């Protein structure tokens, strides 16, 4: 993940994101409606800040031309010898909101690593947790969103018991 990412907040991106979570609230796509609300403009759903992945040049979960990709093509995985448990799952996500997002905002997102810890689990073997903290500041340097994510690498696929 890049240390600093520019994250432009765009109305069409918000509209597509809201559709994907099944949220038909017009504040996410109807400018005329949004003007009459307390917020006063189109804003983004509360979990939208993670869509910063679209703007991370190094994001590892996006297919790219002429680079190995671990999803299926001719074979179930196009990277040979990949362990069966590729293991990266999302364990926790926490947001703090300082003001509503607005189309036209350009956030500067800085990422820093947090804690790392381990746990034994019956369902997936050894678990390694890694915390990532992101601060999202607007064009005036004001803090808009703080995001703390915890990822987990599992020793084997999670047992569906």
């Amino acid at each position, binding site marked *: 993940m890049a240390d600093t990412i520019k994250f432009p907040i765009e109305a069409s991106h918000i509209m597509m994101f809201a559709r994907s*979570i099944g*949220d038909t609230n017009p504040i996410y796509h109807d400018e005329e409606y949004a003007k009459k609300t307390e917020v006063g403009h189109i*804003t983004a*759903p509360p979990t939208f800040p993670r*869509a910063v*992945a679209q703007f991370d040049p190094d994001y590892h979960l996006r297919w790219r031309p002429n680079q190995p990709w671990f999803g299926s093509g001719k074979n*179930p995985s196009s990277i040979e010898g990949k362990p069966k448990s590729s293991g990266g799952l*999302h364990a926790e996500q926490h947001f703090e*909101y300082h003001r509503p997002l607005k189309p036209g905002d350009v956030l500067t997102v800085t990422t820093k690593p947090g804690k790392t810890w381990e746990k034994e689990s019956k369902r997936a073997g050894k678990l390694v947790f890694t915390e990532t903290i992101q601060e999202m500041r607007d064009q005036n340097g004001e803090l808009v969103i703080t995001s703390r994510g915890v990822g987990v690498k599992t020793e084997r696929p999670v047992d*569906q018991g």
Partner: protein
Amino acid sequence: MALSASKLKVGDTHEEVVVEDLSRTQIVMYAGASGDYNPLHSDEVYTTQAAGYPSVFAHGMLTMGMTGKMLTNYVGDGRLTKFGVRFTNQVWPGDTLTAKATVEDIREEGGQKIVDLKVETVNQDGKVVVSGSASARLDP
């Protein structure tokens, strides 16, 4: 519509069915919008044959996003100050999810009324898939 502190009490709840019979297409829409193209969420061949799961499954953030829809419907737009969850079980195509908020505390912070909510989303078998908390600004 925002909530009023005067009309709210500890123990009040709000719940919504946030998805019925989750489709693989919705999961693909979430991948496209969020930018998380992990094949575990859209590539059945990879997920079953290489990763060892019974089928593709939803992004944790899709479930959190649908849980957030219940929250903004309850507390109003632009009112959340915090929202955090743990992902406790995977969500699969075909799942029906119900998200619920429970009022845990109503307090004042710098002259502003704040509600603290417990947040939980369960699947059709009552299994908790997302568990966490949220806080929001209230009208007086």
